[in-house]
């Protein structure tokens, strides 16, 4: 029978193992004597090799075997864990990865590179030189059986199992059955002379032996094959009989021999089972308190290791992303329908129904929270990926950089994490390339020659703040402004606050680099970063001090699919604002408008807050009411108001995409379906503000011209 083997199970697992392998290697570099880590590295390669061979990835298996062999030496302390070993193993890891990619339809892996790595590894072995492929011991592959003969022959097979043969799960009856299966005729005679009297009989011991007369066309080897596993646990005697030979009974008295052979003195057994501490104390080698102290130490280390290991291998289930997405969609729909249920229940004034609706609301909320949390992953894995990046980049650029992290167990929605990867890479590259200075420059400035890049993640309300902090040379707001003016992004007399100047680095085509390195300078990275963060409905903030360093903070929503919204009304139309951004609601009367002399601002506790009139912005026909409401929100760190007719209230908003057709309608981040079935548009406050600002600029320019 053939079983359809799905190789994706192997490749998925292999990629994961390669990530873990990389992380372990980097850790090992810091603590080269940690046997635990060495073991982990070894095991990872061992698994890849074994599974690779099983799933037909022979090249990968062979290559990994080489690496594993050398690492095994590190495990036995035959060689030490050196930087060279780590470098080579890291290179090997990359090679394995490209082999896997090649198998998945990518470019073929570089065979020369593979050879170089293997040679480098072999050179590390003591007395190295052309280490042959490990021939290993005998394998369980059946040796080619001799060709069966035409005529059946009779064999006498004497089987005398060791008394303790049961102890390793062998069932002699199965062996007999197998013998029977290979022959045309089989006579089995049990010999139980070795059986002791009942009171001495140990049911866990085998006292029986057998003589089997087997008629078969198969060879003697076929018979021996039956006993492959018990080769050393029983006496086996096979003899080809001539037809004429008499079935003599020259079986020895096995009884005595068995008893003798199987004899283990009771006391010896017990001694072997006693804990080593007690035995040492008894023999007077150490005092019992010394043993106690050592035990305590052992327990402490073990407990720590157990905890660490447990945390890493907690039981988990693999779920395909599509299934999870499907679940999230369903939960979203449930939330929508539940809102309708609520609405209907309250309009109907049916008390019983309302109670039930409340219960459903509670359950739906929990279900939603649960589902969302399933999609949450710790950002630690992403952070760890960057360790390698930082290491390689700093080597490439001749800088010394250390990367530290904080809040690695902060959780984010899986999709957000996936899409964060590239932007973070850009930002870190920037820090390393442009931010952190070379060691001599740093020393000249009285800084530690080793630069620091610090990644941190922390929950803040309904968002997550991800920070990339470096202690490099910082940003010069004046230089940035000058460059922007030079490039025509800003008018010549532009005056920017430091914060605004820092944001210039995200402009398209903007780069402060004097020369273009392999890493950056093309001015392509940062504006893509901004767009990616926008797409995630997040925001970016930059803080910097010249000479001291720069901090880039990404603020991201915890979840993409459902947000807490504030439902507002303008004329007959309903809109939703993200509640997380909303700070307060203030009344706007005609008098207030008049007082502002046609500028769209309002005075709130002595603070001037600009606002956008939604009615005007969206050309909604009709007259505004006497008193309107301003929803003041935090938009890109600026307080901005949005004028509506009325604020309806909080609304759990399931975000539905507007689709490709409305791609250009950037001021709307999506739509949602309300309890009564109508569609309300969700506003993207940041985009709205940006558009208005851009238009006002154009307007003022055209007026000035």
């Amino acid at each position, binding site marked *: 029978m053939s079983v359809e083997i799905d190789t994706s199970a192997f490749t998925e697992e292999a990629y994961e193992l390669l990530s873990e392998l990389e992380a372990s290697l980097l850790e090992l570099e810091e603590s080269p004597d940690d046997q635990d880590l060495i073991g982990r590295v070894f095991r990872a390669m061992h698994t890849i090799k074994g599974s690779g061979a*099983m799933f037909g990835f022979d090249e990968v298996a062979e290559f990994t075997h080489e690496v594993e062999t050398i690492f095994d030496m590190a495990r036995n302390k035959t060689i030490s864990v050196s930087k060279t070993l780590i470098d080579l193993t890291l290179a090997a890891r990359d090679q394995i990865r490209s082999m896997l990619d090649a198998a998945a339809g990518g470019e073929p892996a570089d065979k020369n590179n593979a050879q170089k790595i293997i040679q480098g590894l072999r050179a590390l072995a003591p007395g190295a030189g052309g280490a042959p492929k490990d021939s290993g*011991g*005998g394998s369980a592959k059946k040796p080619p059986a001799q060709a069966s003969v035409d005529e059946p022959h009779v064999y006498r097979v004497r089987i005398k199992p060791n008394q303790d043969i049961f102890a390793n799960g062998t069932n002699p009856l199965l062996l007999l059955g197998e013998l029977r299966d290979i022959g045309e005729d089989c006579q089995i005679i049990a010999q139980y002379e070795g059986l002791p009297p009942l009171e001495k009989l140990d049911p866990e011991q085998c006292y029986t032996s057998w003589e089997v007369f087997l008629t078969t066309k198969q060879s003697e080897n076929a018979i021996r094959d039956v006993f492959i596993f018990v080769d050393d646990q029983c006496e086996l005697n096979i003899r080809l009989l001539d037809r004429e030979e008499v079935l003599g009974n020259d079986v020895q008295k096995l009884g005595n021999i068995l008893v003798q052979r199987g004899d283990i003195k009771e006391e010896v057994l017990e001694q072997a089972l006693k804990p080593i501490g007690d035995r040492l104390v008894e023999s007077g080698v150490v005092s019992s308190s010394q043993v106690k102290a050592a035990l305590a130490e052992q327990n402490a280390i073990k407990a720590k290791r157990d905890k660490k290991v447990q945390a890493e291998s907690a039981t988990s289930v693999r779920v395909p992303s599509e299934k999870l997405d499907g679940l999230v969609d369903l939960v979203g729909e449930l939330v929508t329908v539940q809102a309708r249920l609520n609405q209907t229940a309250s309009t109907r004034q049916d008390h019983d129904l309302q109670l039930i609706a409340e219960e459903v609301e509670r359950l739906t909320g929990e279900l939603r929270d649960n589902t969302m949390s399933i999609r949450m992953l710790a950002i630690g894995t992403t952070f760890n990926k960057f360790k390698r990046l930082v290491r390689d980049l700093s080597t490439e650029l001749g800088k010394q950089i250390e990367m530290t992290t904080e809040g690695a167990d902060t959780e984010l929605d899986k999709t957000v994490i996936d899409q964060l990867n590239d932007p973070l890479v850009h930002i870190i590259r920037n820090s390393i390339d442009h931010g952190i200075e070379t060691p001599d420059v740093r020393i000249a400035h009285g800084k530690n020659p080793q630069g620091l890049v610090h990644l941190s993640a922390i929950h803040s309300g309904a968002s997550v703040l991800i920070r990339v902090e470096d202690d490099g040379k910082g940003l010069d707001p004046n230089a940035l402004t000058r460059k922007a003016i030079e490039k025509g992004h800003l008018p010549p007399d532009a005056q920017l606050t430091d914060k605004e100047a820092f944001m210039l680095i995200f402009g398209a085509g903007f780069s402060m680099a004097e020369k273009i390195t392999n890493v950056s300078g093309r001015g392509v990275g940062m504006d893509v970063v901004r767009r990616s963060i926008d797409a995630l409905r997040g925001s970016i903030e930059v803080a910097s001090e010249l000479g001291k360093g720069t901090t880039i903070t990404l603020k991201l929503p915890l979840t993409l699919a459902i947000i807490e919204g504030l439902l507002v009304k303008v004329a007959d139309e309903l809109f939703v604002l993200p509640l997380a951004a909303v700070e307060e609601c203030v009344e706007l009367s005609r008098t207030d408008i008049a007082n502002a002399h046609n500028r769209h601002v309002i005075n709130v506790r002595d603070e001037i807050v600009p606002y956008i009139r939604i009615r005007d912005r969206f050309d909604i026909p009709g007259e505004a009411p006497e008193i309107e409401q301003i929803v003041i929100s935090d938009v890109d760190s600026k307080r901005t108001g949005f004028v509506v007719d009325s604020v309806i209230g909080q609304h759990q908003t399931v975000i539905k995409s507007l689709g490709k057709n409305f791609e250009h309608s950037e001021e709307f981040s999506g739509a949602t379906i309300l309890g009564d079935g109508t569609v309300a548009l969700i506003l993207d406050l940041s985009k709205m503000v940006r558009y208005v600002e851009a238009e006002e600029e154009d307007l003022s320019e055209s007026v000035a011209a």
Partner: protein
Amino acid sequence: MGKKIMTVDDSSSVRQMVGLTLKGAGYDVVEAVDGQDALTKLKAAPVDMVVTDLNMPNMDGITLIKELRALPNYKFIPIVMLTTESQAGRKQEGKSAGATGWIVKPFKPPQLLDVIKKVLG
């Protein structure tokens, strides 16, 4: 046949392959990711046979075999270990620890089934 076999391996691809092969032949399968996990699961439900890898974190195969043999319920069940060619010494170690037999990786499904039949019947 209704017999239950436990497969212990830290590699999920191996577990998958073994599991599929065994299920296809009519056995019930329980999976464990290492020795520790295996012992925990065995407390919950008994099995008729164990197939275990040797190199695993938390508790390796040899230790698992020893632990199993120390449990009254599992003293005599067939235990087969998965080894690789280069571990000839381990085979002996495994046998001494109480393993019934072994299968060498890489193996093809029919080979696995042959061994199972041999020690389980």
